[in-house]
C-alpha cells in the first residue's frame, strides 16, 4: 500500500509513530497526482514546491499536522491562484484565506492543490469548468459529478488524504456518491462561508470530502464553529462528534417514497434497499414516508433562487478588476446570470422570486412534519451512478435533475452525508444519503459511522 492511499486516521497514526514523514506523505500524493492527472484532471493548480516546503516543517502535534489537503478552487487561499474554475479569474491571486482555510491551516494541513469544479460551482458534472472536465477515477469515460467533482475525484484516486468542497444543492454529496467517497454537508451556517466565492449565498455550505466517515468528522470539527466574519454562521462553538453507537436500536429512519422517481437506475434502488436491510439489522426501525413533497418542486425553487442570487453575486466581476472581462464567462454562467436577472426584474419578481421563497417555506415545513415521525431520512443521493462524459452537454437543467434528491434538504439548510453503499454492474459506486433535522450532525455521524463499520463498500478503491 502506498502512503497516499492511507485514510486521515491511518496517516496521522503513521506520522505519530514516525513510520514515515510528512515529506514522504506529501511526495506520495504529488507522485500520484503526476501519474494520474493526465487522465483525471482533478486539479486546476498544484502547489508542489510550497507543499514540499511546508512538509519539511510540519508540526505533527497539530490535528492535521503534515497532512496533504486538496481544496476546491472556490475557497480563497491567500497569495495563491483561486479561479473557481472560471477563466474570468484565471490569474487571480487571493488576498486572504477563507475562514475554513485559516482553520485547516492552523490545524497543520498542507494544501497541495486547488481542485477542479464546475465554473463558479454551476453544475453537477465539472463539465462546465473552463479548465476541462474532471474524469471519474472509477471509469475515466464517466463524470465525477459536481460541482466539487475535483475534490471527490482527488480523494477517490488517492491524490490527497483529505479534501474540502462546498455544497449549495448536492455539490458535496453528489460527486461523493459518484466517486464512492464520503461527503459530509453540514447544516447551513455550521461552517463559515467567509472566503468561499459565493454561488447561492442562502444555501452555500462548505464541508469535507474524505475517505471515511471519521475522517470527514475530524475535518468538520476543525472547519465548524461560529465566525464573526459570517453573519449567517451558527453562533455555537465547533461541532464535536458524539460517541459511537453500538446499535441503532430505538432510532426511527424514514424512507421517502418520492425519492425513488420512475427514472431511477435499478441498481441504485437495489443498493439503497440493501442499505435499508443493513440499517434494520443494526436495530433501526424503517418507516416509509408516503407523503414527502415531490422533489421536483425543489428543482423549481432552487433554479429560481439560485439564478437570482448568482446574477447578483457575479455582478462584481465587472471587468474593472480581477483581470478578465465579462466575455470570459462561460455559457452556463451567462445563462444563469440572464435567468436570474430576469426573475428579479420588476414585474416578474413576485411571480418567480417571491413565489419560490414561499415554496421554500413549504419545503422546510414538510421536513419539520416528517421529522415529527422519524429521527432521520435516508435515500439515494442521485437517481443514477456516474453518467458518461458529455452527458451534461446541451442539458441546461442537468444539474438540477441529478441533484433532485439532495436539493430539498439543501434548500432547507439540513445536514446530510453521502456514504458508499454499493456498486452498479459497471462497478460505478452508489451513494446513500442520510438527512437529519437542522444542527443534528451528531445523528448523521452516528448512523453513517455504524453503517460504515458494518459494510465494506468504502474499502474498495478504483483501479487506476
Amino acid at each position, binding site marked *: 500500500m502506498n502512503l497516499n492511499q492511507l485514510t486521515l486516521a491511518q496517516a496521522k497514526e503513521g506520522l505519530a509513530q514516525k513510520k514515515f514523514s510528512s515529506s514522504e506523505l506529501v511526495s506520495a500524493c504529488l507522485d500520484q497526482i503526476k501519474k494520474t492527472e493526465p487522465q483525471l484532471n482533478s486539479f486546476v493548480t498544484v502547489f508542489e514546491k510550497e507543499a514540499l516546503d511546508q512538509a519539511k516543517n510540519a508540526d505533527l502535534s497539530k490535528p492535521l499536522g503534515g497532512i496533504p489537503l486538496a481544496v476546491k478552487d*472556490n475557497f480563497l487561499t491567500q497569495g495563491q491562484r483561486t479561479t473557481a474554475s472560471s477563466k474570468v479569474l484565471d490569474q487571480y491571486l*487571493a488576498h486572504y484565506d477563507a475562514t475554513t482555510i485559516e482553520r485547516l491551516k492552523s490545524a497543520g494541513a498542507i494544501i497541495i492543490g486547488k481542485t477542479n469544479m464546475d465554473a463558479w460551482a454551476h453544475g453537477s458534472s465539472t463539465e462546465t469548468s473552463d479548465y476541462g472536465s474532471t474524469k471519474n477515477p472509477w471509469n475515466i469515460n464517466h463524470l465525477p459529478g459536481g460541482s466539487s467533482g475535483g475534490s471527490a475525484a482527488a480523494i477517490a484516486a488517492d491524490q490527497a488524504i483529505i479534501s474540502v468542497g462546498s455544497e449549495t444543492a448536492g455539490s458535496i454529496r453528489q460527486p461523493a456518491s459518484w466517486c464512492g467517497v464520503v461527503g459530509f454537508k453540514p447544516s447551513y451556517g455550521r461552517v463559515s462561508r467567509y472566503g468561499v466565492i*459565493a454561488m447561492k*449565498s442562502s444555501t452555500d455550505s462548505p464541508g469535507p470530502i474524505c475517505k471515511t466517515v471519521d475522517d470527514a468528522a475530524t475535518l468538520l470539527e476543525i472547519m465548524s464553529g461560529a465566525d464573526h466574519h459570517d*453573519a449567517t454562521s451558527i453562533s455555537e462553538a465547533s461541532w464535536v462528534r458524539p460517541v459511537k453507537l453500538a446499535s441503532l436500536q430505538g432510532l426511527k429512519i424514514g424512507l421517502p417514497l418520492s425519492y425513488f422517481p420512475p427514472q431511477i437506475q435499478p441498481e441504485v434502488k437495489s443498493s439503497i434497499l440493501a442499505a435499508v436491510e443493513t440499517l434494520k439489522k443494526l436495530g433501526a426501525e424503517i418507516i416509509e414516508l408516503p407523503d414527502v413533497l415531490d422533489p421536483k418542486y425543489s428543482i423549481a425553487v432552487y433554479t429560481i433562487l439560485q439564478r437570482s442570487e448568482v446574477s*447578483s453575486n457575479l455582478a462584481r466581476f*465587472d471587468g474593472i478588476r480581477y483581470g478578465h472581462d465579462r466575455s470570459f464567462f462561460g455559457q452556463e454562467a451567462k445563462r444563469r446570470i440572464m435567468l436570474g436577472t430576469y426573475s428579479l426584474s420588476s414585474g416578474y419578481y413576485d411571480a418567480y422570486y417571491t413565489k419560490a421563497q414561499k415554496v421554500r417555506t413549504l419545503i422546510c415545513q414538510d421536513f419539520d412534519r416528517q421529522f415529527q415521525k422519524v429521527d432521520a431520512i435516508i435515500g439515494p443521493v442521485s437517481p443514477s451512478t456516474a453518467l458518461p462524459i458529455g452527458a451534461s452537454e446541451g442539458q441546461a437543467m442537468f444539474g438540477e435533475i441529478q441533484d433532485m434528491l439532495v436539493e430539498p434538504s439543501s434548500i432547507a439548510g439540513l445536514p446530510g452525508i453521502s456514504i458508499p453503499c454499493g456498486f452498479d454492474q459497471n462497478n460505478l459506486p452508489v451513494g446513500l444519503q442520510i438527512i437529519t433535522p437542522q444542527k443534528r450532525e451528531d445523528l448523521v455521524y452516528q448512523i453513517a459511522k455504524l453503517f460504515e463499520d458494518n459494510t465494506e463498500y468504502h474499502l474498495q478503491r478504483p483501479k487506476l
Partner: protein
Amino acid sequence: MKITPIIGLEVHVELATKSKMFCGCDASHFHAEPNTHTCPVCLGLPGALPVPNKVACEWCIKLGLALGCSINQETFFERKNYFYPDLAKSYQITQLQKPFAINGKITINGHEIRINRAHMEEDTGKSVHVNDSTLLDFNRSGVPLVEIVSGPDIKSAEEAKEYLNKIQQIIRYIGVSDADIEKGSMRCEPTVNLCIDDQYYTPLAEIKNVASLTGVMNAINYEIKRQSEQFEIDHQEKNSTNKTTRGWNAEKSETFLQREKEGSADYRYFPEPDIPPIIFTPEQIEAIKATLPELPDDKINKYKSYGLSDYDANQLADDKSFSEIFDKIVTQNDPGYAKFVTNLLIGPLKTISIEIEKINPEYFKKLFDKKSELSSTAIKDIILESYQTNQDPIAIATQKNLFQVSDTGALEKIAQQVIDANPKAVADYQKNPLSIGFLLGQVMRASGGSANPQLAKEVLEKLLSI
C-alpha cells in the same frame, strides 16, 4: 398662473460610528490617504461577507425616534443591484421593504412635514476624475448611511432650508453624525415639481450633486422657474415614466438633464441572503429611546415657558452644548433669572468659547441678586472675568469698586462739589435743563463710576432746583 411648488427631500447622513457598516474598517474617510481604510468586505472581494454594525443599527433607530418615527421591530437588508465603478460589489446593501423607521414628522413654523422613512444602508466608494483617468477610492465604501426621506410637503426653497437645518440640528443633538454638508457627511437631493392652477402637475425632477445649503435653495428656485416656463411651452404633466434626474451646476447656477425615464430604472431588489433578519425587541427600542437627549423642540418649548421670546429660545436651543450650559445655570422656571442669564449667554459669553465644566451656576445667581447695584457694563465685565478666572463675581465687583453708590448722602456731597466747581455749567442748566449731561458726567467721574446714574441725576436736579 398659480404655482405651488411640491418639494420632497432625500437626505443621506453618514453615521459617525467608529467602524464601517459591514466590516471593522475605520469609518472616517475625510482627507484620509486613498484606499487605506479598506478590507476584503468593503472592497467587495470574492468570498467576503457583510456583518452588520450593531451600533449603526441602534443609531438609525435613535435617529428615527428623534424624527418621531415608528420603529419596525423586525427588519431586513436588501440588495440594490446596479453597476457603477465605485460600487464594489455591483450592489448596494440597503433597505426597501422594511426600513428601520417609518412615518415620522417634524414641524417647521407650525407646518408639519412628514418623514416617510429613515433606513440604513452603506455608502459607495468615490470616483476621482484626473484628466482622462478615473481613480477609485474605497475608503468611503461601506460607511454607514441613513437615508431620510420626507413627504412631498415642502413648499419653498426657504422651507427646504429650514427643514434641512432642523434635521441637521436633531442629528447633532443626538450625536450620531456631524451632519456637515460641505464635508459630505450630510447630502441632500431635492425632488421638485409644481402644481399649476391647483390642477396640473409638472413632471418630477430629482436634483443630484447639491453640495451646500445655498445650493439646495438655488437649485430648487431654479427648478421652480424652469418647470413653470417649460409648462407654459409644452403643458406636459407628470406620469409614471417621465421623472428625470438633473444635476446641479453650482458655477452656472443651473440644473441640467442627467437621466430621463427614471421610472423605468430596475434595481432588482431582493433580500440580502448574507444577513439574517434584524430584530429589536420593544424593550431594546425603549432602551434606545431612553438614550435620547431633550430634543430642540422640547428645549424651545421649555424656554418659552420660562417667559423667553421665540428669538431667545431658538438662540439657546440652536446648539445642544450651548443649551446644556443654560440648563446647568437655570434649573427652574424663574423668568427674570432666565432672561438675565440668556442676555449674558447670547451676549458677552457668546464672544468667547465657553465650556460647561467651567460654568459655576452659583456665580450667576449671586450676580443676579446684586444686579440692581451694578451697571449693565459692569455685569458684562464681571461675568467674563469671573468665568475666565473662576472668581466669585461679588469679590470682583467689590475689588474693582463697581458697586454703584446708592447712598443719597454721599451722592449729595459729591454733587454739591461738582455744582460749586462748575458755575458755567450750572448757568447753562438754568437756561436749558437738557444740558444736565455734563454735570452728571462730572458726578459719575468723581464717584469713580460707581454712582447709580439715575440716582445721581435725581440728586443733581434736586440740588440745582434749590
